[in-house]
């Protein structure tokens, strides 16, 4: 495995990313968007600037108009976004949906979607979850029936991240001929019979229900092979999972640093509360968990980039570790802030709310421990 250190260009990218996020207001921006009830839940100007800097092309090959970088760079962007609670749909639209089109799409589909995605002009949203899916990628009820030369889709997807305002959706559905397999469809948002309804989650991010009532799509809308959707979907989910781990790392680091700062400045009983050993040891424990998390994220990103045999193990190890660490850190952060942490006015609660959304994205710690055990044959 490549060294678990940042190269000079990676270090530069991480700094630039941090600067961009804080330039636009950092956590205050997320609060403002929430309070305004902004329909998109993010800023199109920030998205445009991310495109201008080339970030929306980071995971794509140069032949598709991308920068030809990999997950090792992708997690630097998501970490910076996590630190500043930046709500732009980078993971869902670029890493997940764009990555899936690049992986499983044909030349025409790539040409239609990737350049405008990389330029920031169009966005895709992966519609993965259904009401009963939990974390099972194959727990899909949405049906695809042949209709003329094409297909007719019916079903309902929930918590479609970045679904509001998306130009197209990646829909997983079951066909009559392939009850065991899944088929992926690229469906334009403007298709007749497709309805997008905004959902409101605890993290105030862009999320939607996508209802499909007899939506007609052409044969060319199938991404990859009919009945062969599960494999590329699994690969896309692994990449998106590691990108999410990067965001988790940013979130835990930021909430931890804010908490340490609080321990160093808040006095009770006439002394700084950071002098209390009961808090010191818990702080040190959090530090260790964050250090371990960082190693797993760097390793998982490199394992995916290198196509290692143990890439799936590394991904599950990282997601389980980051989920546990992030919940520990954000819960402890609130506790150590005391009563002020319970107020909406204080930012620490925003981190805790986002943490839960990330914990449940693509499987929580228990899910990934089970996957790890299954892969290792325990």
């Amino acid at each position, binding site marked *: *495995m490549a*060294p*678990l*250190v940042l190269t000079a260009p990676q270090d530069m990218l991480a700094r630039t990313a941090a600067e961009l996020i804080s330039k636009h207001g950092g956590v205050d921006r997320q609060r403002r968007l929430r309070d305004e009830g902004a329909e998109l839940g993010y800023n199109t100007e920030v998205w445009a600037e991310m495109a201008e800097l080339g970030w929306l092309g980071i995971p794509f090959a140069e032949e598709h108009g991308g920068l030809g970088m990999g997950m090792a760079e992708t997690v630097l962007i998501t970490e910076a976004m996590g630190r500043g609670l930046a709500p732009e749909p980078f993971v869902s639209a670029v890493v997940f949906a764009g990555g899936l089109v690049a992986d499983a799409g044909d030349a025409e589909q790539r040409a239609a979607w990737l350049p405008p995605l990389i330029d920031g002009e169009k966005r895709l949203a992966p519609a993965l979850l259904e009401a009963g899916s939990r974390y099972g990628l194959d727990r899909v009820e949405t049906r695809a029936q042949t209709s003329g030369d094409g297909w007719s889709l019916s079903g309902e997807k929930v918590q479609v991240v970045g679904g509001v305002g998306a130009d197209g959706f990646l829909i997983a559905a079951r066909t009559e001929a392939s009850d065991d397999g899944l088929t992926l469809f690229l469906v334009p948002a403007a298709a007749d019979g497709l309805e997008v309804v905004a959902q409101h989650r605890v993290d105030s991010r862009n999320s939607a229900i996508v209802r499909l009532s007899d939506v007609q799509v052409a044969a060319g809308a199938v991404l990859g092979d009919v009945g062969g959707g599960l494999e590329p979907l699994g690969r896309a989910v692994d990449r998106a999972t590691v990108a999410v781990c990067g965001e988790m790392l940013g979130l835990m680091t930021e909430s931890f640093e804010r908490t*340490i700062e609080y*321990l*160093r400045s808040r006095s009770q009983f006439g002394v*700084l509360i*950071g*002098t209390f*050993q009961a*808090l*010191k*040891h818990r*702080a*040190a*424990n959090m*530090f*260790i968990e964050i*250090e*371990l*998390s*960082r*190693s*797993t994220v*760097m*390793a998982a990103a490199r394992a995916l980039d290198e196509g290692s045999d143990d890439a799936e*193990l590394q991904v599950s*190890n990282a997601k*389980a*570790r980051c989920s546990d660490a992030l919940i520990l850190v954000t819960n402890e952060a609130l506790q150590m802030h005391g009563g002020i942490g319970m107020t909406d006015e204080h930012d620490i609660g925003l981190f805790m709310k986002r943490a839960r959304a990330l914990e449940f994205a693509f499987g929580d710690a228990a899910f990934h*421990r*089970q996957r*790890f*055990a299954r892969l*290792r*044959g*325990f």
Partner: protein
Amino acid sequence: MFREEARAWVEGNGPEFLRGKASDPNAWAAGGRKAPFIYPESRDWLLAAVDRGFSVPTWPEEYGGAGLSRDEAAVLHEEMGRLSLPLPLTGFGYSMIGPTLLDHGTETQRAEHLPKIARGEIRWCQGYSEPNAGSDLASLATSAVRDGDFYVINGQKIWTSGADEADWIFMLVRTNPDVKKQRGITFILVDMASPGVEVRPIRLISGASPFCETFFHDVRTPVHQVIGEVNSGWTVAKALLGHERTSIGGMGRGRARTSLPDLARNYVGVDGMGRIDDPAIRERVTQCEMDAMSYGLTIKRHGDGLEAGHKPGPESSMFKYYGTELNMRREELMLSIRGPQALGWEGEGFEPAELTQTRTWLRSRANSIEGGTSEIQLNIIAKRVLGLPD
């Protein structure tokens, strides 16, 4: 490719008898004049390694090493691990005083001591703790008073690992009782054969006696055996504690050991799908394996950082803490997996591996105490890494 070279050398020189014996404590040799080898093959293995500089692979060639980078040494050790061979040389000379002399010793001191460690001729022990200086190590009271070209040492050390088998001791002594306690400590080397040194082994809960009480009555050692400056021993000691913590923390991974999943399959059984037939044990095994993986990656990241020129920080406290806690959790889990068969002390009705496990579990309870307790490590992280106030 160094890996091919290392593999060829290990396959050509690793004694058949020692292959598969990495988890047999009797196969590990720390050298020295007194009780160096339980298996004669360990001697052959050491001599072959000495010949090639592989007993202390990262040390410079002039001191008996092979001048390997950390990565190359890791590859060499992996290749030994692949055949489940013990390292050819272990002990405090290799892991602690050697690296300390490389950092803090004078050229004369290095030339005097390092080649003897590399060749396995001299075995070292550590004189740090005292009956009234445990976690609060800096309050140590064993005194050294200058008398011409000698220091005269009086006092008592405790928990001196392997003192009954060691040839030399590196120790902390008080050379100035009138200043802040950390400022009056000197790091000094003493020949254990000197008149006035007395060693008494201590019997532990595991039944073994790896530690001793060591008494010093007017023991004389030449002034040129002081490492670093007089009264600056605390700095040297902290550097050495870093090596010690990394070495103890290394227990959390490394050496080829009993496979937890295999052990669980054997003792607990498997269900119809071939899974460990107890969901709680299966979950604990999985957690333990994932923690070990994450810990291994963190050690790798730290090493990669050093190779890339990052300055070493107080990370050794993190490694000591996490590595020992992980090792202890693993030992506890192995007890749970073996159940009542883990209760054997000696005699019939228990397999040798079960009897060994009882002892290693008991031994492991010291991991979070020796080399600075877990609580002390957390204090160090809170203070030196996080900057929390005193």
